[in-house]
């Protein structure tokens, strides 16, 4: 278990380029199992968790709902981010478990600092949650914040076969489609392209 490497799995503060996104690895065999598990978890509407404790699940659910709230459009909860995260941490990302436990501890520590006496992140008000998150984001490298944000974004925008991005709510939000075949023109400017005038 290499915490430094794990912590880099997701970017705390954005700003790096693509290399930092290409990190860990797994065997292709495990991929098939991961897909199968994801699909069964979704199909079964699993309420229990494989890796997360009930408290961690509640905290992460609240955190991810602040990252991508359900407002005029569906947010993290509608995309099944919580079950996606639980299943990848129990399977293909199992080597990230220790880092995730550290991350939850960091979250709890910040809750205790910001709202003394509070039971958990999930138990405080939305305004207090935002205050906690801003404090975590302000830390150098913002690793704990980055991991929680990273799993949220991954669960929201991933291939639905992995169990997140339920009903493609993430892809629909941004206007992405994964079709195998496209033909030009692809966008407005190539549709109106006149080489002579360019």
């Amino acid at each position: 278990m290499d915490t430094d490497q794990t912590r880099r799995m997701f970017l705390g503060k954005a700003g790096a380029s693509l290399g930092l996104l290409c990190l860990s690895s797994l065997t292709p065999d495990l991929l098939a199992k991961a897909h199968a598990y994801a699909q069964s978890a979704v199909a079964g509407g699993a309420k229990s968790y494989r890796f997360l404790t009930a408290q961690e699940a509640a905290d992460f659910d609240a955190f991810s709902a602040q990252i991508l709230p359900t407002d005029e459009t569906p947010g993290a909860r509608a995309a099944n981010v919580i079950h996606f995260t639980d299943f990848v941490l129990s399977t293909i990302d199992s080597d990230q478990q220790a880092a995730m436990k550290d991350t939850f501890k960091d979250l709890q520590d910040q809750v205790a600092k910001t709202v003394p006496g509070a039971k958990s992140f999930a138990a405080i008000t939305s305004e207090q949650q935002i205050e906690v998150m801003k404090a975590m984001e302000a830390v150098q490298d913002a690793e704990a914040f980055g991991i929680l944000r990273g799993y949220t974004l991954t669960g929201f925008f991933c291939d639905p076969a992995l169990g997140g991005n339920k009903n493609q709510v993430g892809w629909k939000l941004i206007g992405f489609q994964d079709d195998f075949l496209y033909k030009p023109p692809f966008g407005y400017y190539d549709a109106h392209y006149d080489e002579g005038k360019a």
Partner: protein
Amino acid sequence: MSGVTPPQHHYKLTEVVDFVIIGAGASGGVLARELSRNGFSVVVLEQGPWLTTKDFTHDEYMNWNHALLTNDFRKQPTTFRKTPKDKAKKRPALVYGRMVGGGPVHFTANYWRFHEIDFIEASKKGTIAGTGFADWPITYADLEPYYTKAEWDLGVSGQAGASPFDPPRSKPYPLPPMPIKSSGVLFEQGARKLGYHPFPAPMAIISQSYQGRMPCAHCGFCMGFGCEMGAKSSPLPTMIPQAIASGRCEIRPNSYVRKIELDAHGRATGAIYFDKSGKENLQRARAVILAANGSETPRLLLLSKSNRFPDGLANSSGLVGKYLMFNTDSLAGGLFEHPLNEYKSIEVTRIMHDFYEIDPKHGFYGGGGIDGRFLWYPISFASVGLPQRGPQWGSEYKKALQKYFTRSMYLTGHTTSLPLEDNSISLDDTVKDAWGLPAMRVTYKDHPDDLKTCQFMLDRSMEILDAAGAQDKWAYPVEESTYGFHLLGTCRMGNDPKTSVVSSGHRTHDVPNLFLCDGSSFVTSGRGQPTETIQALAFRASDRIAALAKQNQI
């Protein structure tokens, strides 16, 4: 998706083959095809799996975060430090293709020739104090026939003569350029307004059916993904099956080489490798060719110590692993009024080479190209694709994702890296890989001129976005490199055995039947797109090695 081995000729371990090639990637695939077609028996040892088009998916998380097509940090950790004085820290520092077909399976497919200046720049502009900036022992004219061969044998789409800066060529591209995307149109309009000369990007992706392969379907998953159509012209759908068809080439995937063996006369006798089950084997050969990439090739030489070569095989110069060059990249984004839908089709359709050589009056050395493109997929776009000054979570962030995704494009600058002796691949003192071998230690700090070049490209990119009418634009700050994709220069080519590792014919100066041919042979970095030069060198090396073998001079 475990990878299967298609039917092919098999050699017994007791057989001595003509060539053992280590690495089935950009250069190894070419060498395997050329030498086996030339009548030689060839075994290729590849550390990664043998995947096929059926194994490839559009799954961003698995392909990017779980490195399906690239090196596996969990099994092959790296350490990184900026200078030799620092203590190296364990963390991912390199990304390279690790499968049959190599890096070109997952690359963006930018396919640029070097220009004439790249080979003779030190003598034209003068050496640079504190660097290993030097001329190549070969010229563009030496390599030109092999650039042409690479373009025609692999399948490259482009428009000859479209750039006034292009070097001379003996033949046009075999295929017309890929259809222009909105990013290409906007880049072209902005660049032309400023008096620049954008042109259709040469891409190793086939725009029409070619040699029995289907053309690109514009699915949008190139960079970081394997092509399900087989339209990306990596060695996987081209060189590899043609090598197998010779009946004289065996590709052995999942074969992790740990040492090159030498006999009492100082000649290489073969390669010792771990097979998939972890069993150690020796593949004997009359000659050994390392085509393992600019990091694995020097590492393997450093691992192959002996009484004769206490500092690593073929390392009498002491330069094995040194002069590592990554190329630097600049990145700027722009938002436009109408949808571009850049997630469709290939990444890049227009580039420019107006700053291939930046005017020395700016006070630094450097140069490069700029392209207009898209760079992300949904997860990575959400992670880092928006302007950094805006919110990165919450309702406003969600609205920004919604607004920017289909209407954004990016300009990337691809630039020079000066060769510095301290920048290197070496063996780590403490960290080991999953096979118990010393991990790779990467030492890297950009030369100040490299960063100035990068900033120069970024400034020009922002001006082009303005000229193209961007409603919003944002620059990603230029930072020192802390990881590399382009692994160049670590066993540099030269005529003098004291200042280089291989000859102009890729033969090591120290071991007559040991050849190195990949990014490690580079003397200078070029301008950020090294694959075509790696492959042209491999075609040229194949000719020379075959001629030597036929004359019994190996």
